[in-house]
């Protein structure tokens, strides 16, 4: 690599990092509790637990559950019912201000799948995890906030790639893993930044890149709804919303019969963001850690209860669905979550040491000028080593 190209890569690394670092710190700090979302909600008492029930397990009619959910929030609109593999005895209902309103102000209700009883609201708005979640996902700015954080994530990926490129020249006189502990902090932290940055590079690129993809989730599903879903509906695409929709219980049974071996993940009611005006969309999932994330929609006519169509998701939705577990780290049990947390904290160390190195090189104090110029400046900006 010539000195000129190295200087260019150094410039890319410096500026891509500088612009995104503060936001990345925010994302790392808020991401840490989000890894343990379920556990924290249980500890804070915000999770609804299913009561113990004697006798053989039965399951309540989903139509009764729908009626209960609507009765609990009479001025809200029922958008979704969803199920959690980990809690088979619960059904969750999501209700919004309008049928097609974005989920920002949605309320959530937990119902007993066995008795059909309402167990209570799952508090979200205004809870600790709500603020953490919004800071991580859209900094309280909706879709523009998501896209902005996605752009910061892209810069983070650029910073990692350019960091890997300048790592080589920076390590010219060092062995892998050398941290010169006896040298001034600027040198020590440069070595630490290089070591931890290169060791975590693959994980940071995957989690950063999948995070960027996740910021496009709204757009991806909107595109899917306007394209593939419309295609699946064919001549029925403009069916009006039925006044008295057909049985949801029957619709779920139809979906299960069409896709044996798959389980419902959630159902979107007619005229919501994941369905057409006249149909239920039942999203089914498989059983392995991967296929449990790969949803397949089954479209059911909500006027007649008739099966309309089912198709595998197109590549762009599949990409989004695969990128979700890889960002969340929730697909390999508690040990994977703990590893995710440790990797997250080490990423914070890489960010802080990087920020410090920039700051020190910008304003070297007299006492450290020697170290800066001799150790960092020369090697880092790519001047000849000898």
């Amino acid at each position, binding site marked *: *690599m010539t000195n000129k190209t190295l200087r260019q890569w150094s410039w890319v690394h410096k500026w891509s990092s500088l612009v995104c670092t503060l936001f990345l710190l925010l994302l790392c700090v808020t991401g840490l509790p989000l890894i343990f979302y379920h556990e924290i909600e249980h500890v804070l008492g915000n999770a609804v637990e299913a009561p113990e029930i004697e006798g053989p397990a039965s399951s309540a009619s989903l139509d009764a559950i729908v009626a209960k959910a609507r009765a609990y929030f009479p001025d809200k609109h029922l958008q979704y019912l969803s199920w959690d593999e980990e809690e088979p005895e619960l059904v969750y209902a999501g209700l919004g201000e309008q049928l097609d309103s974005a989920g920002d102000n949605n309320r959530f209700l937990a119902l007993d799948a066995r008795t059909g009883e309402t167990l209570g609201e799952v508090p979200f708005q205004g809870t600790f995890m709500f603020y953490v979640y919004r800071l991580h996902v859209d900094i309280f700015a909706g879709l523009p906030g998501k896209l902005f954080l996605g752009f910061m994530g892209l810069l983070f990926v650029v910073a990692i790639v350019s960091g*890997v490129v300048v*790592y*080589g020249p920076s*390590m*010219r*006189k*060092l*062995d*892998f*893993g*050398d*941290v010169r*502990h*006896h040298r001034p902090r600027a040198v020590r932290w440069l070595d*630490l930044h290089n*070591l*931890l940055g*290169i*060791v*975590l*590079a*693959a*994980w940071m690129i*995957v989690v950063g890149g999948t995070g960027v993809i996740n910021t496009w989730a709204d757009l991806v599903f909107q595109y899917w709804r306007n394209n593939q879903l419309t295609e699946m509906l064919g001549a029925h695409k403009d069916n009006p919303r039925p006044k008295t929709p057909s049985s949801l219980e029957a619709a779920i049974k139809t979906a299960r019969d069409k896709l044996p071996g798959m389980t419902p993940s959630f159902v979107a009611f007619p005229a919501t963001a994941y369905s057409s005006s006249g149909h239920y969309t039942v999203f089914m999932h498989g059983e*392995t*850690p*991967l296929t449990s994330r790969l949803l397949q929609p089954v479209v059911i006519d909500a006027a007649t209860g008739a099966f309309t169509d089912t198709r595998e998701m197109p590549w762009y939705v599949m990409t989004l669905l*695969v990128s979700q*577990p*890889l960002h969340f780290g929730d*697909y*390999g*049990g508690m*040990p*994977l979550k703990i*590893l995710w947390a*440790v*990797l997250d904290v*080490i990423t914070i160390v890489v960010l802080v040491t990087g920020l410090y190195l920039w700051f020190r090189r910008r304003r070297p104090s007299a006492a450290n000028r020697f170290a800066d110029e001799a150790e960092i400046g020369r090697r880092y900006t790519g001047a000849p*080593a000898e």
Partner: protein
Amino acid sequence: MAATPVRRGLLGRTYLKPLVIALVSSAGLLFALIGDGLWDYLSWLALGFPVAIGLWFWLRRAWPGRARAERP
């Protein structure tokens, strides 16, 4: 510790170990997607690898003998 000749190539000299670590961590990310049980254990091992390497080289000065040996 001293500089090795640049002629040996940047890849082998500087990037070989990082490449191995990147491959092992990527495999760790994939293993847990494939299945449960054994696949989870493999995933924890493989993703624990970059953590262990990073922490080891970062904190090894905590061993007093080593710290002295490293001083010039």
